[in-house]
Structures are given as structure tokens and as C-alpha cells.
């Protein structure tokens, strides 16, 4: 009885602590949402807040009255991340399979060949020069997809999974006269769905959240990825604000019909429209992302 009470008390304490900690992760999201709904007047008085004094949808109206940029951003991001995820996962599986076959003679050499770039790299500048001046990839979709096609770390994880497949499959298929290629397509790929899904989703998430590429290589606004578009919006509005300070004009208002929306609020509405849907979808695939980490005992 006594032990029981102590148990419930400790559970209560643990749960209170964890609820408080999880607030640290939920409240910032609520802050993003309510910032996008804040009325221009309420923003002036109370700034960004968890519960704005008055709500307004003006910012969303102004975005949807001129949605071209967001649509372009979505187009680029969806195309690029889906292509990169599919092509990348396929190339990584193609690479991992020979490395998982025990009799393949070049296994060791090739392991080192793909592993060495993890230890040493030429750095940002030589890559930039090669991509722009020699391959002319800048300002195209290719720059999003090609340089991130194959990740050594993911190849190692896939290889570890392949090594765990039951050996009998390979032996009986070999006896039936199947070639390695048909074993790969007919047995290995279908049996490896969990790791393939994990890798595809990891690549997809990585590309979805990619802003560095556009920062370095993209100049056409139509080819901006969503995240880079968001970055420009945050920084540029800052620029607008500073300008208005310098000329001693108070915060600039953008007219949207009868309602007014502050640029500060529009910025957050953009953030929600651009990042919100993905943030709602990705957590559902949580277990796949965690799996990629816990595959454990990976070796180069």
C-alpha cells in the first residue's frame, strides 16, 4: 500500500516534469500560429504573443490574394524532394547491395572509396566552383538533386540491413540460376521495404528543409525552395522595417482591401502556409525517422 502510494507520487512528479518540458516544444509552435493571426493593432500593443488580444485573418488574405511565389516554392520543393528521395534511395540501394555480398572482391576498396569523403572534404569553395563553372548546375533543379544523391551514412545503414537478410534466399535463388540483378530486384528490394522507406523519408525531409542550396546557387525566384523563400521573407521584412525606421516613418502597413495587415504578421502567415502542412505530416512517420538512428552497430 505504502509502496503503491510512493509509486503514484513518483509517476505524478515525472509526468508533471515531462509535461512542462514538452511545453518547451509545443508553445513555440503555438507562438508561430498565433503570431500569424495577430491583428495589426494588437501587434503594436502587445507584440507577438501566445494569445493575441485580437485575431485577424488579414495576413492570410493578403498572401492568398497573391499566392504565386508560394505556389512556385511548393512546386520546386515537392518536385525536388520527391525526385531526390526516389532517385537517391535507388542509387543508395544499388551501392549497398554489392557491398553486402561476401564474395564481391572490390568490397573493401569501394567501402573506403565512399567512406573517405566523410572524413575529408574539399570544402564549400571548390564544390561551388565545380558546380557553377564546370558543371553549370547553378540556377537549375539539378543542383538540388545531384549533389545530395548518395549519402555514405545511409549506404552503410542500408548495407547493414541487407547483411541481416536470411542467407537461404540468396542460396536457393542462386541454385535456381537467378543472376545477382534479379535477386536484387525480386528478393532484396521487396524484403527491405522498412529500410527503404526510412531512407526515402529521411532524404525527403532533408530536401524539404533544404535552404542552403538555394542560398548558394539559385537566383531565379521561381526556382526558390520553400525554406529559402521563407528566409528571404524574414530578412527582407527586416530590411523594410529598418528603412522605415531610418525615415522616421512608423511601421509600414500594407493595404488589403478594407483590412490591414502588418508586414510582421504577413511574414508569420507565410511561415505557416509554407511550413505548416509538412510539420503536420512528418510526425506521423516518426517511427521511420527514429529507426534510421537505432539501426545501431553500423560499420564502415
Amino acid at each position, binding site marked *: 500500500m505504502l509502496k503503491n502510494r510512493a509509486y503514484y507520487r513518483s509517476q505524478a512528479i515525472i509526468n508533471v516534469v515531462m509535461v512542462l518540458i514538452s511545453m518547451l516544444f509545443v508553445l513555440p509552435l503555438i507562438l508561430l500560429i498565433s503570431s500569424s493571426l495577430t491583428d495589426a493593432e494588437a*501587434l503594436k500593443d502587445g507584440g507577438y504573443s501566445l494569445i493575441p488580444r485580437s485575431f485577424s485573418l488579414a495576413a492570410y488574405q493578403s498572401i492568398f490574394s497573391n499566392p504565386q511565389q508560394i505556389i512556385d516554392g511548393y512546386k520546386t520543393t515537392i518536385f525536388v524532394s520527391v525526385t531526390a528521395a526516389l532517385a537517391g534511395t535507388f542509387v543508395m540501394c544499388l551501392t549497398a547491395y554489392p557491398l553486402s555480398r561476401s564474395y564481391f572482391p572490390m568490397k573493401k576498396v569501394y567501402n573506403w572509396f565512399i567512406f573517405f569523403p566523410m572524413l*575529408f572534404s574539399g570544402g564549400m569553395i571548390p564544390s561551388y566552383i565545380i558546380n557553377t563553372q564546370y558543371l553549370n548546375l547553378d540556377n537549375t533543379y539539378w543542383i538540388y538533386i545531384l549533389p545530395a544523391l548518395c549519402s555514405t551514412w545511409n549506404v552503410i545503414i542500408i548495407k547493414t540491413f541487407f547483411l541481416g537478410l536470411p542467407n537461404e534466399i540468396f542460396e536457393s535463388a542462386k541454385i535456381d540460376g537467378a543472376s545477382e540483378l534479379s535477386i536484387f530486384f525480386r528478393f532484396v528490394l521487396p524484403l527491405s521495404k522498412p529500410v527503404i522507406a526510412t531512407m526515402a523519408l529521411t532524404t525527403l525531409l532533408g530536401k524539404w528543409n533544404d535552404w542552403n542550396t538555394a542560398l548558394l546557387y539559385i537566383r531565379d525566384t521561381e526556382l526558390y525552395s520553400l525554406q529559402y523563400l*521563407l528566409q528571404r521573407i524574414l530578412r527582407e521584412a527586416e530590411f523594410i522595417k529598418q528603412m522605415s525606421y531610418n525615415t522616421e516613418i512608423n511601421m509600414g502597413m500594407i493595404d488589403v482591401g478594407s483590412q490591414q495587415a502588418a508586414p510582421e504578421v504577413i511574414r508569420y502567415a507565410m511561415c505557416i502556409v509554407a511550413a505548416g502542412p509538412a510539420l503536420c505530416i512528418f510526425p506521423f512517420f516518426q517511427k521511420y525517422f527514429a529507426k534510421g538512428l537505432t539501426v545501431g552497430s553500423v560499420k564502415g
Partner: protein
Amino acid sequence: MSSLTKSMKQSAPEKALRAKRGAQRKDIMLLTCMLLPSFIYYIVFHYLPMCGIVIAFKDYTYSGGMFGSDWNGFKNFEYFFTSTDAWVITRNTILYNLVAIVSTVTTNVAIALVLFEVSSRKALKYYQTTMLLPNFMSWVVVSYITYALFDYDYGVINHMFGTDINFYAEPVYWPFILSFVNVWKGIGMGSVMYYAALMGIDTELFEAAKIDGANKWQQIWHISIPSLKNIMAVLIIMGTGNIFRGDFGLFYQIPMDVGNLYSVTDVIDTYVYRGLSGGEYGSTAAVGLFQSVVGLFTIICANSVVKKISPESAMF
């Protein structure tokens, strides 16, 4: 007659063997072809740039390109190492990484230990999901959050506490902000790993400890933490190996590239990026090479230490 059957018997397995060898040779060919796409990828996007580090020793011009520009010896390195930037960005990179190693390991282990004690499955799922949320956000979205908190005019902090701090102009606060945001973003994923290790502990150990009269703290100290030691050691050492690499997203997006804050927010990676956008290829390539070489050295050292502690966790 008997010799004939004998020779037939011999040749049959031989033939099979030859056929098998032929098939194997064909298979090896096929497997080699499968490596072709990634071979081209690694040559073009990794090994070619490695050759490109020659520009660190060159006076780079656009017309001359990577291989046609004139050599200028160690001038690029001299230029960097005699500047005050060299000291500042190296110090920042190393210090932030040290803080990150200590803070992420301690917080991730602590969270995993607490989560391990949560008995309700539903509650556990809720905590893990919420803590994983930042993992799905890009650094840009995180910078929207920090901006909403720290903005001078409309920021939550200034309004809530009635303070009048211009965060984006005062460097003192940024080491704390950046270190905290770093832990915040990675804690969901990090604790999952430790949690998985805790799940792997034989429950009989805890039962036996209970029978022996060990309380919760003693169980944690003598069973849970020792079982996490290996992962902790490996992650700490790997972190040390990467001590010369700064997270570009964290240091570029969160302080929003504000010049006033460079003294505490600039790391090697952001410095190289600025050099690139400023067109100073030669000298920044030298910085990049410096980072790569020292990084290679620290990673090899770290790996040999891991090899001593737990050979199966070593990377190579």
C-alpha cells in the same frame, strides 16, 4: 567401359564448376555495374572538389579557373592566420562544440532516463512526439521562432518581462541562446537513441536490484547509466572529432547573419560562406582546407580512442 564412366563422372562436376565460375564472373560484373552511378557521383561531387583544394594555394581568377590561375604559395594562409578573424572563429567553433557535446549528452541522457520511468504508453508517445517536432523543422522555421521571442519591438521576451533589450545588437546573450537552441533542436532524436539502449537492458537486473533493496536512484546509477556508457563515450568522442565543424544552419539562421554579433556567432563555416559570397575564393578556400585537415586529424584521433574503449563502435 569402367574408364569411360570414370571420365564422365569426373567431367560432370568439372563442367558444373566451370559453369559456376562463369556465372560468378558474370555476377561480379553485374555487381560492379551496380556501383557505377554512385562511382560517378563520388568522383564528380566529392573527389573532384578534393582536387579543387589547389585553389587554396592560388590567386584565383574567374578566367583562369581552378587549374589555370597562378600559384601564390602560402599567401592565402598567411592572410587568414595573421587576421584577428582566425582566432575569433576558431575559438567560437571549438567552444560552441565543447558546450554542445556536454549539454547534448547530459540533457539527452537525462530525458531518456526520465522517459524510461514513465509508465503510461500514451503519455510516453506524447512526450516523444512533441520533443521530435523541432527535428522536422528547418533552421529557417526555428529562426522565425527565435525572432518572435527576441525581436526588439515585438518580441515575446521584451513584452512579457517589460525589458528593453535589443537582442540582435548585443552579443552577450547569444552564446546562451545558440547553445540552448542547439540542444532544443536535437533532444528528441538524441534521447530516442539512449532510450532504445535502456529498453535493451535485461529487466531481471532491475528486479534483482529491487530485491537487494536498491532504491530508484541506486538502480539508475548502477544499472541504467553504466549501460549507456558506451554510446555516451562514442558520441562524446565523435563530437570531439567534429570539433572543427560548426553547424552552418544554427550559426547562420538563428542570429540572422547580423554583423554586430559576429564576435560570438561567427564560426568557420559561416566565415567560409561569407568569403564565398564576397568572391574571395582563394583565402576562404585556404580556411576551408585548414578546417578539413585539422578535422581529419581530430577524427582519426577520436576514432582510435573509440577503438580502445569499444572496438565494435569504431567507425573504421
